């Protein structure tokens, strides 16, 4: 029952929408452009 409730909690948690204003982190690559993009 402990395992079931833990899974249930996780499942619930995943359905929780991100808080308002949440900005996903930028993808790790490609990186920033230092001069200009051809």
């Amino acid at each position, binding site marked *: 029952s402990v395992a079931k409730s833990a899974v249930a909690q996780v499942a619930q948690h995943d359905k929780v929408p991100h808080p308002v204003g949440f900005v996903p982190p930028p993808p790790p690559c*490609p*990186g*920033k*452009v*230092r001069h*200009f993009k*051809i």
Partner: protein
Amino acid sequence: VPAAPPAPLGCDDSESEAAAEVGVSYINGHSHHGYKFALNRIKNIRVLPQGLNNDIIFLELDLLETTCHILSPTPLANCTVRSFTDHAVEGDCDIKLQKVDGQFFVLASKCHSHADSSEDIIQLCPDCPLLATLNNTEVLATVTAALNDHNSKTADAYLRLLEIGRARIQYHPVHVVSVEFAVAATNCSAAEAKADVEACQLLPSDQSNFGFCTASMVTKPLQDLKVDCQLYGHQVLTPDVPFLSRPGVTYSQPGQDTA
């Protein structure tokens, strides 16, 4: 519970930037032609752990050509990246490095460069001059005229052509051919060269004195030639940098210098 694997490196992480800096320095240090390149963007990085303090790193880099010729002693940090309207040239490089005890070593690199498309330049700057091929007859004639003009006026050493770095031709509103080329001092003064130019040889590597010239030739409506040559002063080159970088340019006028 086994430790979670480290988060993948991001392309803007300091460690990625440190690896990229080693890679760009390696590329410029082993290039024999053209110009120095600067980092524009780290496109991708992959790390393959090999054991304790030992990783193999694959880097994909976007570079941009600078205005410094590869023989220039100017540090890369002081080299200006060629602007978009100057007809920029981009380099794409794949580099394999090994990081051992915090130190990076380049194991292999593969690069290719390409100029920005003429359409892009014309769209933004209709009258900007565009890159011309280095064996274009107008380009060769301008390099010949510029080097002969410099050698006929200088009181210093007679200069020989090493390589043409780049050339651009503008067609409107006037017809202008602009060239950049690398030169080397010979063992002759300009006066001695007039007597016997064949005797003028490049100085031995322990005395080499390289330089760089820019010139522009307005051909229409009136002919006007401007030349500026600067010698870098004596440099000790790494042995694997060949003096003459690409098949020589032959001059049109008979009896002129050939490289």
